[in-house]
Structures are given as C-alpha cells and as structure tokens.
C-alpha cells in the first residue's frame, strides 16, 4: 500500500474505502491522547470530550482526502489543534461563553484542590499529587504554541519533525518552544522541585 510503513496510515487507507472497523481501531487507539490534548489546551474537560469526538468524525469525513504519504498521527493532531484553535477563537469572540466554560471547568480535580486556590508554602512538604496539579495549572498558563509543543513531545508517536509540522514551524523553533515551556514550568514549581 504505497510503501508507507505507518500501520495507522494503512488503517486509514481502509477507512478511506469505508472500513468502519479500521476506523474503530484508530479511535480506540487515539481517543485518550486526543482528549488529553484537547482538555489541556482548552482547560475544559467537559468540552474536550465533544471536541475530541468531532475531531474523529472530521477524520472520517475527510478520509477520502487523506494521502498515505502523510503520517496519520501528525494529520490527526493537526486536525485536533485546528479544532482547539477554532474553539479558542470562538470563545474570544464570545467572552460570555468562555466565562461559562471556565465556571464549568472548575469541577475539574485540578481546580478543586487547595493548591489551585492557595498554593502551599514552599517550606511545607508537598506531595506529588499536589505538585502534578501545580504543573497542570502551570501548563494552562503557557501560550498555546508552547503548550502544544510541550504536550506533544510526550507523545511517543510524534517526532520533533512531526511536532514541527503540526505547529507549522521549523524544527529549531519547535525545540525552542519546548525549552521555553519547560523553563517556564521549572520556574513556577522551582521551590518544590528539589524536595
């Protein structure tokens, strides 16, 4: 099949021919990383599920346009990022909506903890869970490009080149974004890092 070694691309070629079970396999494999990505970019876990669902439906709808030369995961995350950017744009045009969703997202575990409201004193012993919540909040405060670069670098499927393609920037710019994001996170949690 055009010599593409990417197994997901092979599945996508089957989807292109209308194979629903191949599509199901892809959804099953990527539902978690896509939902995680969308939730952390939008800081809205409720909306993340709907958007992730729309991402996969879009994949199915545009399957006929998929070219086997492209890596499936890169294509999928590009679609997911575009959905997130559209949602961010939509919210910026309708501030009332974003206020509403912010209130809704306060149901998320990260927002309900004491750390999000009153960050603990550095001198106090801080548990990993709280530190992770702090990291989650620190990620939320990053610019979208840094956030995307930082989150995608953790995806095994994606190389730096793939992330650069998704972000639409150069390889060195991508590495620079990751470095800046990590430095920013380290600054925010520095008092707790060496405990």
């Amino acid at each position, binding site marked *: 099949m055009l010599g593409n070694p990417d197994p997901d691309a092979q599945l996508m070629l089957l989807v292109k021919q209308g194979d629903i079970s191949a599509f199901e396999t892809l959804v099953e494999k990527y539902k978690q990383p896509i*939902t995680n990505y969308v939730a952390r970019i939008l800081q809205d876990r409720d909306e993340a*599920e709907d958007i992730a669902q729309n991402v*996969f439906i879009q994949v199915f709808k545009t399957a006929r346009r998929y070219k086997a030369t492209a890596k499936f995961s890169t294509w999928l995350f590009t679609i997911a990022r575009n959905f997130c950017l559209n949602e961010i744009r939509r919210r910026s045009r309708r501030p009332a909506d974003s206020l509403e969703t912010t209130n809704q997202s306060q149901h998320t575990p990260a927002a309900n903890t004491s750390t999000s409201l009153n960050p603990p004193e550095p001198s106090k012993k801080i548990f990993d869970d709280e530190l992770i919540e702090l990291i989650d909040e620190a990620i939320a405060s990053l610019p979208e490009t840094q956030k995307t670069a930082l989150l995608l670098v953790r995806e095994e499927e994606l190389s730096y080149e793939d992330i650069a393609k998704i972000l639409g920037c150069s390889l060195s710019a991508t590495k620079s974004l990751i470095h800046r994001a*990590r430095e920013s996170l380290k600054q925010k*949690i520095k008092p707790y890092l060496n405990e």
Partner: protein
Amino acid sequence: MKKHEFNILAKTVWKHTPSETELNELNRALDSVADKESFLKEELRLNELLGKLPDVSVPSNFTARVVEAAATQPARRNKLITALTLSPLRRRRVTAFAAVIVAAIIGVTGWKAFEHMNRVETAQSAAVFTEIAIEPDFETISNFETIYDLSQAPEVDNELLTALSQTDTGYDSY
C-alpha cells in the same frame, strides 16, 4: 545554553526518561551550565511529573458514539448517490433530453454565428459603397456644375420636332 547542549537535552530528556548511558553523555555535554547536578535533577524531576499527569477521563462508550456518528456520514452520502442514480429507462430519457438540449444549443449558436457573419458581410459591402459615395474625387467635384447643368436641359419640344419632320424635304433640297 549552547546549541549542542540544547539538542542533546531534546534527544535524551524531553521525550523520555534517559538511560544511564544518556545521562553520562548529558553530563559530559553540559559545559555551559553552572550547577550541572542541580540542573539535571530539575530536568529529570520535571520529566517525572509530566509523565505523571493524569489522563482526562474518557467515557467507555466514546468509541461507540464516534463510530455511530461517523456511520451516519456515508449513509447520507449513499442517499445522495441513490438520488442521483437513475434507472435505465430514466437514464435513456435523460440522455435523449440532454441530446436535444445540446442540439438546440448548437443550432441556436450556429444560426447566431451565421447571422452574425451575414451582418458582417453586409456591413463590409456597405462600408465600401459608403467609402466610394462619400469620397468623390476632385475632378468629379470640379465638374459638378457642368454635370448639373446638363441634367437641367430644357424639355423636348415635340411640336417643333413634328414640324421639322414635315419640312424635311425642303431642307434636303438646299
């Protein structure tokens, strides 16, 4: 931070937990970092915490819902295809109708072209005639008065002509 240090960090730490060999390589490579030990400790700790970020809960029926929603997409497309698919009889009728339309278009276009060509030819002839009529040469204009005078000759006197014919013999005798 130097470029090679930056690249080795990207290669060894950012994407995964580094192995012992990679850590040694990193230790040797980080020349410009003042407190190398603390820096590495922070990098690894951050890695560890990022690795522990919890997954966002995905409902168990997520895949089923997506597949169901996607399955309605080809159904819609099939409906459209079905709507466009014709029975052989209807296909023949549609083909005949299309042929008539095409022939009519060709006929009308041909007739229009023929008419246009005729008009052009007429216009061209008229143009030549007009050119001749409008631009008489100088000689014609200079003799215009003479020509005009000639055309203004007095009417034929029939009575005189009759009288002259009767006296023809007389003249001949002279």
